[in-house]
């Protein structure tokens, strides 16, 4: 497969939108890695660098300036929040995607491999989870567990695995018919062996693609929950939370609708670019595996 | 009586431009089809037999291009026609049936709809008239209860019935040439026998020419009047069917005939052709069969021309004499 991988890489980097998405992603990774250098924490928040430092006592937002290049909102430096918020975005995206994908893989592959009533029960459970409107469920769950970023993540994992489960189930059902699976059974390979060695390697790519696409949208979902006040606490470096403070200023001032534009534009742009990066990468991956593995 | 040429393909070259390189799928193929006869094209996968037929109808995908050659149908070159003019030819003058009728028929329309579409398109008749013709055609191809079956969907028919429906659709406009690309490969032998019989009957009735593409020498022997043997994009032998089977003049043809197990002959051991069918991206230089050929010499690095070795029998090989000696010895060994 080494040759195959090289070919895929070549294809990936020949695709301009894929390359752009990849470059954006690299940029975000660098920002997240070097956050302490790009926006060093103040002495006041040294012990909790994720809290945006309070830089002024006036509650009115302040436009971008030399010290605060993205302006100030809710007494806090937006630039600092956007930079450190990159870390939050990755944390939410990676954790939720990884855990919910694993849950989905587990449920989906068991369901598909065994079939029969096991499949029936697991898929009905999946249907129930799918039938619950996500936002309402998340609100209920956070009222039960309390607010906070970790609670939001739990809610997103709880209601985020079904897509993967269904996708992998469908793919495995298809792959199960391949003769190499039968051949493995004829040799005497055990059930976990067949799933891990034969079925998953041949069905996982669409899941990876789906996961990369979801990574971006998860950040939006987290932002919505933060915007509703369920997510990150006041002052936490989270793009959604920054938008939450700017809520009061969205309408601008009397006669100047765009007066506080910077409270929305900087965190908003960061979010849009982040989602775009993942989608472009996911799209390109899908094109490379096309047409056999189209989602 | 001199037979009339209806189709003449001259030096056809169809190449495919893939990411990995140029695939010379058909590389200088010439043949002609006479009125009312059946020309068999035989060869293994990747020899270019299907691409040849798709080139005639100009149905190649975007990667394929006809580089060179002429396809003269009733005297006019199909390669010079516009797409509109070509549409008039397809289905109407030259029709085609495929190996897997399930994928060639559209699953969301009834077979009646699909047959009538072709009739209305080419014959410009009313819908009722078209339906009548369609039922008539279904009856002709041996589909029982055609009045009922016409409103059924492809998945409701068995494989054999679907192939019959395909044939009905192909013949509904009374074409001069029917191209049949492995029409029975996906079918069971008893059903294959039915379909082959049907095709012969319909040919007698309609007098169309058939181009029969297959990998099965048995089907060729049964159906064809003349045969084109293809290997790796080239014609290696071209002859009368009887002459080809009795007196093959190319090592590949001879090897192929000896390598198949037969119902009428008992072999202790099959004479396998060694090696693998060459990859279309890396055909050998010169004679493309040479790395599998027992007669190959240095001479074979040069491409052998297709020459007339006896009346109406063409072969492309440098070592026909050696081949014939060996064949003679083998024959004597058999009789002794």
């Amino acid at each position, binding site marked *: 497969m080494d040759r195959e991988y090289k070919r895929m890489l070549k294809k990936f980097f020949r695709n301009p939108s894929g390359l752009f998405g990849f470059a954006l992603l690299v940029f975000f990774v660098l920002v997240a890695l070097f956050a302490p250098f790009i926006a060093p924490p103040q002495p006041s928040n040294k012990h909790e660098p994720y809290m945006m430092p309070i830089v002024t006592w006036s509650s009115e937002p302040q436009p971008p300036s030399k010290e605060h290049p993205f302006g100030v909102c809710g007494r806090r430096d937006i630039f600092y929040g956007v930079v450190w918020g990159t870390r939050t975005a990755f944390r939410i995206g990676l954790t939720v995607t990884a855990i919910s994908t694993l849950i989905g893989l587990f449920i989906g592959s068991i369901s598909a491999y065994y079939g029969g009533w096991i499949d029936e029960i697991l898929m009905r459970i999946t249907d129930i989870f799918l039938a619950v409107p996500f936002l309402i469920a998340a609100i209920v769950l956070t009222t039960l567990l309390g607010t906070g970023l970790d609670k939001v993540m739990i809610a997103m994992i709880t209601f985020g695995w079904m897509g993967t489960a269904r996708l992998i189930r469908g793919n495995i059902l298809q792959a199960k018919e391949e003769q190499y699976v039968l051949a493995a059974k004829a040799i005497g390979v055990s059930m976990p062996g067949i799933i891990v060695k034969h079925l998953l390697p041949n069905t996982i790519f669409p899941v990876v693609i789906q996961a990369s696409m979801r990574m971006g949208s998860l950040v939006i979902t987290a932002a919505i929950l933060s915007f509703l006040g369920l997510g990150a606490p006041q002052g936490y470096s989270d793009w959604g939370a920054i938008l939450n403070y700017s809520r009061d200023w969205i309408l601008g001032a009397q006669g100047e609708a765009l007066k506080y534009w910077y409270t929305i534009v900087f965190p908003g742009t960061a979010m849009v670019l982040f989602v775009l990066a993942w989608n472009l990468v996911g799209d390109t991956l899908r094109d490379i595996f096309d047409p056999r593995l189209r989602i | 009586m001199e037979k009339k040429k209806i189709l003449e393909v001259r030096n056809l070259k169809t190449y495919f431009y893939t990411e990995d390189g140029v695939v010379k799928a058909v590389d200088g193929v010439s043949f002609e089809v006479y009125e009312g006869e059946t020309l068999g094209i035989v060869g293994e996968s990747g020899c270019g037999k299907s691409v040849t037929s798709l080139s005639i109808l100009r149905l190649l995908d975007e990667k394929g291009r006809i580089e060179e050659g002429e396809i003269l149908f009733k005297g006019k070159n199909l390669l010079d026609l516009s797409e509109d003019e070509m549409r008039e030819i397809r289905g109407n003058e030259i029709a085609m049936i495929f190996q897997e009728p399930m994928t060639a028929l559209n699953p969301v329309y009834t077979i009646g709809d699909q047959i009538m579409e072709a009739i209305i398109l080419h014959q410009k008749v009313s819908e009722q008239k078209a339906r009548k013709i369609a039922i008539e055609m279904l009856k002709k191809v041996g589909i029982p209860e055609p009045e009922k079956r016409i409103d059924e969907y492809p998945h409701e028919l068995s494989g054999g019935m679907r192939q019959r429906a395909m044939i009905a659709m192909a013949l509904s406009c009374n074409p001069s040439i029917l191209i049949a690309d492995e029409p029975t490969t996906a079918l069971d032998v008893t059903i294959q*026998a039915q379909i082959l019989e049907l095709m012969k009957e319909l040919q007698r009735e309609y007098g169309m020419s058939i181009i029969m593409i297959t990998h099965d020498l048995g089907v060729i022997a049964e159906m064809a009047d003349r045969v084109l043997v293809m290997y790796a994009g080239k014609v290696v032998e071209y002859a009368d069917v009887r002459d080809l089977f009795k007196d093959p003049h190319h090592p590949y043809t001879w090897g192929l005939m000896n390598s198949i197990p037969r119902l009428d002959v008992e072999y202790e051991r099959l004479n396998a052709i060694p090696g693998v069918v060459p990859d279309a991206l890396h055909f050998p230089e010169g004679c493309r069969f040479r790395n599998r050929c027992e007669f190959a010499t240095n001479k074979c690095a040069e491409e052998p021309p297709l020459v007339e070795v006896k009346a109406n029998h063409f072969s492309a090989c440098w070592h026909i004499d050696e081949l014939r000696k060996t064949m003679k010895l083998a024959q004597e060994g058999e009789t002794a």
Partner: protein
Amino acid sequence: MTTKQPILQVRNLVKHFPIRAGVLKRIVAWVKAVDGVDFDIYEGETLGLVGESGCGKTTVGMTILGLYAPTDGSVYFEGEDITPYIIPRWRVRKYILKTYVKPFMKLKKDKIDELPNHMKRYAEIFFNDVKSNAKEFIRMFMDNRKDKQKSIRRNLQIVFQDPFSSLNPRMRVGNIIGEALDVHKLVKNREERNRKVVEILKKVGMFDEHANRYPHEFSGGQRQRIGIARALVLNPKLVVADEAVSALDVSIRSQILNLMEDLQKDFGLTYLFISHDLSVIKHISDRVAVMYLGKIVEIAPKKNLFDRPLHPYTVALMSAIPIPDPDYKKKRIILKGDVPSPINPPSGCRFHPRCPIAREICSKEEPPLQEHGANHLVACHFPGEMS
């Protein structure tokens, strides 16, 4: 034939597949893929199993291997009933009761010698070893289940039809072949494993460097060689070849057929060769069984079958094969209609709606598979009438 021992005996083998529909996935019908099949395979021979698509020939192969659990009937391998190990655990008790305990209870002890060989062995165990204790007798079949299953896997192997779908595209050839060795713990270390893999690769006409490549780097014929190597690396006694050459090009097909014949001699293999192609079957088999719609209609040594086919279906099948000789003139029998659905097979003889010589009795009574001449079994009310 008398000196040879049957290596595999199949008795009244039945495999029905449920068709489910609706929300509750209730069973609405059964596909009677295999519906009561009996045959023996003798050590070292090749039994050809021929029939058209949907006749159940592949299902027979899969069921013998235990890849499908039989609905009913028994499979004996080297005289041992392997059915309890290929059906689910919860069915074993019922199976043993039905197949052995109940018949034995009714049996007088001195009648043991009249039983057929495969039953006699178990009758002796039942009466002598466990002293008619049914519980203990059943436990005997429950013990060592995993080991027994593994030994079945080692002794019975399969070569598949499709050289493209039968090899895992994400595994190297060495691992595809070596996996079986790992599963059965037949090798102690990597070196031994590699040595064995290379050894078998050479046996099937490939080279040692091929072990490091992926399946897509090979042609159809080479892939089929890899598939054969995977089956043979465990040193099985019986190999089921399920349409093993059908997907290959004509010129490659003969290579693989020759290879399989050579390997049979080398390894002392027994083949069950399943194919729809009568010419291939004729070439490779010693005996041939013809299947139609879930039943065996005729079974005989090759020469008898091809010289004097007795069942009208066999006759029609033979006449339907196009002969690669334009001068070969023969009377062709064209069967009318299609193969009926195995969900609702016709009454009586299943072939009667398509049979040119069918009479009234054929639609009413099912003809049993009976001997008609030496070793020539046929299931027809009017055998030989059509030849």
